[in-house]
C-alpha cells in the first residue's frame, strides 16, 4: 500500500471516529411478537411509526415464531435473566402470566410513569376478559378478535341457497347437506376447533366451561364441557363428519387453508381472518359474513375474545420502562387504535376508536369488519361468557382438540371423547394448581 493511500485511510478513520455524534443513543426496547405475513408487517409499521415520532426510544419488533414459541422464548430469556421488555402472549397464556410473578402489571406501569389511560373506554368484552378481580389490567390489549361465520356466495348459488348466512345450527346442517349434494368439497368447516366449537359455543349459549366461574374466581380444576350442551354439539358435528357435510381441517387454524382455497361453503373462524380472505378471494369468489349460529333450546350468552395482549416483563431498567409506557400511550391513542383496527381487521379496542372508525365511513367500505362488533353487541354478557382463564390453557385446548379428532374420525362417541378430554384436562389443571397452592 502506498504512503499516500495509507495517509488517506488514516485521515478518513480519524474523521469518521472523531466526528462528535450529535444524537444520544436511543434506549432500545425489545418487543417480541408472533405475527406473520400481513399482520407482521403491520406490527413493524406501528413500531416504526412510534420510533419516527420521537427520538428517545427505539422499539425493536422481533418476530419469535408462533404464539407458543414466542412465549417459550420469553420464558427462557426470563430464566436466563435477559427477558424482552414487551412480549405478545395469546389469550390462553393469561393465567400462566398472571401466576408467574414475572410481569410488571400494565396498570401499575402506567401509574408509575404518570401516563393516564382511560381504562373504562375499553370495549366491555376486552375489559372483562383481561381485568383482574380488582378491575385492573395486567396486560395491554393489542389484537382481539372473536369468531364469526363466513360463507361462500358462489357455492351457495350453485346449491340453490339464498344469499344469507345460516343463523342456527339446524340451518347450517341443512345448508351443508345441500352444498354437499351440489358437489362442494368442504360444505362446512371450522378453524380453531376448540376455541370456536367448544369454548365459544359454551359461552355463546351461557354454558359454563370450567368451574370457579371459568377460572375467574380462582384456579379452575374441572372442565364442564361434557354436559348435555357439549355432548349435543359434538354429536351433531360427529354426524356431520360421518355424513360428509363437515370437513375437519386440522387443529388450531389449519382449516383456514380450506377456506382460503375457496373450497368451503360455510366456515367459522376468527374475525381477524377477514383481511387474508379478502386478499385470497380477490377476483376468484365472493363471500359474506354473519354471526355465529345458535343451537336451539339454550339461553343467550355472548362470544368471547381471542387474540393476544402485550405483557411487560420484570427485569428491565427504569429508563427502559419509561419507554414502554410511552409506547403503550402511543398505542392507546384513539387515532392509532382506529388505524390498527382498520388495517388489521382486529376489533377496535376502545369505544372511541370504534366511533372514530364509524364516523370515517370505514365500515361502509369494509362492512364485514362490523359483523363481529354487531355480534358482540347483540349478545348478553353473563358470568359464563366473560371469558375463560385456565392455567396451562394451551395444553388443555390441545387435549380437547385431540379428542375432537377421535370423535370426528369415529373412533370414540361424543360422550366418550368429551369425558376423556375432561379427564386429561383436569389432570393438566390440577398440575398447575398444585404449583400455586
Amino acid at each position: 500500500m502506498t504512503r499516500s493511500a495509507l495517509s488517506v485511510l488514516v485521515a478518513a478513520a480519524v474523521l469518521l471516529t472523531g466526528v462528535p455524534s450529535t444524537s444520544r443513543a436511543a434506549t432500545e426496547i425489545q418487543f417480541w411478537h408472533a405475527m406473520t405475513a400481513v399482520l407482521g408487517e403491520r406490527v413493524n409499521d406501528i413500531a416504526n411509526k412510534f420510533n419516527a415520532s420521537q427520538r428517545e426510544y427505539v422499539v425493536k419488533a422481533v418476530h419469535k415464531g408462533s404464539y407458543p414459541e414466542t412465549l417459550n422464548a420469553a420464558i427462557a430469556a426470563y430464566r436466563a435473566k435477559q427477558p424482552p421488555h414487551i412480549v405478545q402472549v395469546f389469550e390462553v397464556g393469561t393465567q400462566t402470566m398472571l401466576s408467574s410473578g414475572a410481569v410488571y402489571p400494565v396498570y401499575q406501569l402506567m401509574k408509575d410513569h404518570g401516563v393516564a389511560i382511560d381504562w373504562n373506554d375499553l370495549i366491555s368484552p376486552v375489559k372483562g376478559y383481561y381485568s383482574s378481580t380488582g378491575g385492573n389490567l395486567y396486560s395491554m390489549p393489542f389484537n382481539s378478535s372473536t369468531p364469526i361465520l363466513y360463507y361462500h356466495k358462489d357455492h351457495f348459488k350453485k346449491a340453490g341457497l339464498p344469499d344469507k348466512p345460516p343463523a342456527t345450527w339446524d340451518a347450517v346442517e341443512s345448508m351443508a347437506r345441500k352444498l354437499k349434494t351440489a358437489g362442494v368439497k368442504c360444505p362446512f368447516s371450522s378453524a380453531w376447533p376448540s376455541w370456536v366449537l367448544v369454548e365459544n359455543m359454551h359461552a355463546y349459549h351461557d354454558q359454563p366451561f370450567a368451574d370457579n366461574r371459568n377460572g375467574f374466581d380462582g384456579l379452575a380444576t374441572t372442565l364442564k364441557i361434557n354436559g348435555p350442551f357439549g355432548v349435543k354439539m359434538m354429536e351433531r358435528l360427529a354426524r356431520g363428519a360421518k355424513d360428509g357435510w363437515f370437513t375437519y381441517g386440522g387443529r388450531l387454524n389449519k382449516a383456514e387453508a380450506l377456506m382460503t382455497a375457496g373450497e368451503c361453503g360455510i366456515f367459522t373462524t376468527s374475525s381477524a381472518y377477514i383481511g387474508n380472505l379478502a386478499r385470497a378471494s380477490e377476483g376468484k369468489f365472493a363471500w359474506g359474513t354473519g354471526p355465529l349460529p345458535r343451537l336451539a333450546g339454550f339461553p343467550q350468552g355472548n362470544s368471547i375474545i381471542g387474540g393476544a395482549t402485550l405483557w411487560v416483563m420484570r427485569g428491565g431498567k427504569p429508563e427502559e420502562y419509561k419507554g414502554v409506557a410511552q409506547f403503550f400511550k402511543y398505542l392507546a391513542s384513539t387515532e392509532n387504535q382506529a388505524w390498527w383496527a382498520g388495517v388489521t381487521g382486529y376489533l377496535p379496542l376502545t369505544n372511541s376508536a370504534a366511533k372514530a372508525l364509524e364516523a370515517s365511513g370505514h365500515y361502509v367500505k369494509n362492512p364485514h369488519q362490523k359483523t363481529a362488533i354487531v355480534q358482540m353487541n347483540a349478545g348478553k354478557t353473563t358470568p359464563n361468557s366473560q371469558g375463560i382463564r385456565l392455567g396451562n390453557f394451551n395444553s388443555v385446548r390441545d387435549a380437547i382438540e385431540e379428542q375432537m379428532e377421535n370423535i370426528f374420525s369415529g373412533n370414540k362417541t361424543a360422550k366418550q371423547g368429551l369425558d376423556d378430554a375432561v379427564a386429561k384436562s383436569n389432570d393438566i389443571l390440577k398440575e398447575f394448581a398444585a404449583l400455586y397452592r
Partner: protein
Amino acid sequence: MRRAVFRNPWLPYALVAPQIAITIVFFFWPAFDSLRLSLYRASPFGDRLIFIGGGNFTRLLGDPAYFRSVATSLGFSLVVTVAGLAVALLLASLANARIRGLAVYRTLLLWPYGIAPAVAGVIWLFVFHPSFGVLPYLLSFVTDYQFNWFLKGWVALTLIVIAAVWKQFGYNLAFYLAGLQAIPGSVLEAASVDGAGPVRRFFAITFPLLSPVTFFLFTLNMTFAFFETFGLIHAVTQGGPGDATSILVYRAWKDGFDGLQLGYSAAQSVILMLLVIALTTVQFRYAEKKVTY
C-alpha cells in the same frame, strides 16, 4: 487389545481437553440439570420449584397415552428402519452389479440425505396436500376414499414413514454399497462355481457377511427414527391426528414447550435417555465383538 504406543505425561490430556471441556459444559451440565428437574414440579417461569421425587414418573407410567406413545415410537421406528434397510439392500445388490454408470447411479440415489427432515416434510406435505397435491389427485381416480391425514391416523403415519424412509434412503444405500464392495469377489465366484444361484448366494454368503453393516444401520436408523424425525413431525403432523404420530421425543418436547410442564418433560427425557443408553450399550458390545476379527 492394541498396545498403547506413545508415552507422554501431558500431551494426551491436552489432546482430549477441547472435547472434554465442551462435553462438560454443553452436555453434562444440561443433562444433570434435566435429571434434577425431572424430580420437581416446575412452574413455567421458574418462580415455583416443588420437589415431588418420583411424582412425574408415576404420572407418566400411569398414563395409557404414554404407553401408546412408546408403542407408536417403536412401531414407527421399526417400520422406517426395516423398510428403509430392505429397499436399500435390494437396490444396493442390484447397483453393485458390473454395469456401467454405477457411480452416476450412486450419486443420483444419495442426494436426499442432504435434505433437512423438516424441508423433506414440507415437500411431502405438499405432495400429499388434500387440495393441490398430486398424490391425492392421482388417487382420486382410483378410489373415492378420502386420504385425509388430518383425521385418519394411518394416513398420517404413512405420510411420515414415506418422508422418513425417502430421506434416509441414500445413507442406507451408501453403507450397503460400501459393504458389498468389501466382500471379496472370489468368495462369490467360488459359490457360483459350486452351483449356487444368485438368491442362494445372497442369503448364504452376502447377507451374513453384511451383518455388521446391517446391525450398524439398524441401530442408526432406529436412533434416527426415534429422535431426528422430530423436525419432520413438527413440520407436518404435530403429533396428530389424535395422538397417532406422537412419538416419544415429540411428546417430551411438546409437554415442555407448548405445555410448559418442564419437570414432567424432563422426566420423559430421562426415560428416553435410559432407552438410548440401552440401545447404544447393546450396539457397542456387539460392535466390539465384531471388530476383532
